[in-house]
């Protein structure tokens, strides 16, 4: 592990039990996250992309222990910078301390703000919970934060319902910034917003990253947004990361057939941009009973016998490029041509 690693997730799993009957016995498990390995370096933005149900949001929540992971290590570089601390096994007191450095921005700016608190109280609440600063100081800090996200001081006495979706998302961002964290997990922060507002928030996130030296784990389903904001991108499918590379490498030189198909499916805002769409038959299989072998094989047009029987290893296939596909070395997959 290098010195500039901020977060390293190893073998992260989160299974949700399905209970049935009077005794509420566990009859099956939803394998929402099924062995995720991921490292995030200081100051970078790692995009985590995938379709609904792939486990990307659960991964983000498990990293913060907003949902308890079933197994795995979540190593995070703490306050003292010296050593990595395992978030997964941290005591409640230690966890609270760790959360000063790891915050989250939620997808839905409506349900993630308490309607009975003023905006100033919402933004200052993390400081209050952590027992930092006196009341007056907290209020002053809240005003500074509101200004940093493009709101004004007089917004602090108002309530969330008085704000539009984009403004609410700014409030959520100000709250995430309050403790001066190192890592912010952005869970679909712009997908509920209109296009023009989405661009404002993306620009704001980039400005704040530069200004405060933030590290982002950016979870999204929109490949164009992920491509725009990320230094590296991880693609998830059915609870696992199937491919990880630097953004440009991933988009121009994909090594996993799912990445190739996903990219070809994105509608490009250019009537003359003709991609040959790679049809993905059917739907994503159920995470309760994932297919044997490679999870993707029932929808993969390159699948062979080995794919149906053996789980492919997640391995390095090119410089700093990881993929889990038996045929990664032999397939010449189509990426996006740079123009």
């Amino acid at each position: 592990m290098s010195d500039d690693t901020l977060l390293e997730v190893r073998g992260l799993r989160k299974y949700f039990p399905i209970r049935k009957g009077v005794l509420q016995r566990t009859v099956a498990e939803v394998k929402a996250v099924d062995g995720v390995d991921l490292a995030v370096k200081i100051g970078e933005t790692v995009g985590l992309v995938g379709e609904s149900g792939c486990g990307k949001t659960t991964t983000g929540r498990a990293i913060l222990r907003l949902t308890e992971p079933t197994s795995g290590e979540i190593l995070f570089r703490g306050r003292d910078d010296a050593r990595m601390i395992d978030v997964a096994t941290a005591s409640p007191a230690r966890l609270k301390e760790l959360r000063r450095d790891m915050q989250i921005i939620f997808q839905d700016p409506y349900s993630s703000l308490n309607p009975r608190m003023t905006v100033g109280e919402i933004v200052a609440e993390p400081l209050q919970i952590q027992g930092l600063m006196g009341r007056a100081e907290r209020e002053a800090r809240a005003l500074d934060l509101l200004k940093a996200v493009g709101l004004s001081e007089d917004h602090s006495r108002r309530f969330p319902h008085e704000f539009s979706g984009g403004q609410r998302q700014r409030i959520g961002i100000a709250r995430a910034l309050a403790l001066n964290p190192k890592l912010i997990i952005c869970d679909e922060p712009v997908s509920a917003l209109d296009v023009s507002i989405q661009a404002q928030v993306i620009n704001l996130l980039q400005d704040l990253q530069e200004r405060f030296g933030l590290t982002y784990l950016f979870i999204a389903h929109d490949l164009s947004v992920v491509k725009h904001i990320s230094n590296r991108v991880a693609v998830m499918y059915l609870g696992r990361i199937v491919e990880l590379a630097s953004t440009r490498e991933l988009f121009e030189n994909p090594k996993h057939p799912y990445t190739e198909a996903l990219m070809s499916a994105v509608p490009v805002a250019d009537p003359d941009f003709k991609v040959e769409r790679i049809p993905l038959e059917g739907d994503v299989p159920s995470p309760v009973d994932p297919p044997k072998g490679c999870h993707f094989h029932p929808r993969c047009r390159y699948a062979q016998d080995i794919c149906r029987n053996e789980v492919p290893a997640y391995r390095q296939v090119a410089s700093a490029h990881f993929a889990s596909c038996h045929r990664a070395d032999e397939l010449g997959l189509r990426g996006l041509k740079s123009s």
Partner: protein
Amino acid sequence: MSVDPLIEVKDLKVHFHTEDGVARAVDGVGFSIAPERTLGVVGESGCGKSVTARAVMGLIEAPGKIEQGEILLRHNGRTVDIAKLDPRGAEIRGIRGTEIAMIFQEPMTSLNPVFRIGDQIVEAILLHEKIGRAAARERAVELLAAVGIPLPRQRFEQFPHQLSGGMRQRAMIAMAMSCNPKLLIADEPTTALDVTIQAQVMDLMNALRRDFNTAIMFITHDLGVIAGMADDVVVMYLGRIVESGPVREIFRNPKHPYTQGLMGSIPSLADWGVRRLTAIDGVVPSPFAVPQGCGFAPRCPHAMEICRTRSPDLAEVAPGHAAACFLNQVPT
């Protein structure tokens, strides 16, 4: 245009009379759709695109009211003004389904959860056509197959919750196509779907349009979807059309600052090196308090004095391409 339009909307205004005041949801909109063409209607939440679609379907009910304008449809060899029809009357019922059909964003809320998929399609067919139940059943199975639903006979017997989101949207499309409508209105039909499923549904709609010779009014906020589906585009903002034209013109040569702003707001998958998006400042004003002059002026980087007092009309900037902006016209 040489062909007579299938439908022609003229200066349509739909206002909602609520306790909080009058919301001018659609405030003077005009466009036409020729047979077998796809018109893309693009705009952000609250721009009036869905209300426009509902008006064309004759679905405006209180507190909404069509204040003025015409929605002219050629029907049984004559021209009918949908805007004048009673939303619950017999005539509009004869038009809905047979002439114009509609699919919605969330297929789960548009399908009845307690009836089997197949029976819902059969009902739609029997309502509009004089054929027997057995024949309607056969037709429904054929339609399910035509929209790419595997094992259509088994799916026929299933309930909506047993289908995935993509399959439900296919079933909705099958129902909409059941009476061979001349115009299909699709209101954000792919927005709730994952990108790979969205691609399947877009391909399906493009194929159906060729097979059934249907014109489509495709409403979306997604410029990528518009680029892949539409022949012609209208861009809406605050209840008005700010720009209209052939799809290539709109994307290559956008003339209205709002269209330009939208284009700059979306990260491109096709090129590298754009570090910063050119976002549009501010927010959409409330439809209860539409600004005087051009609705976009408060957010427009090019706003001039005249923009704050007078509202520009759509004016042609190139053949078939019009924009409602004083930058492109000499004010008189």
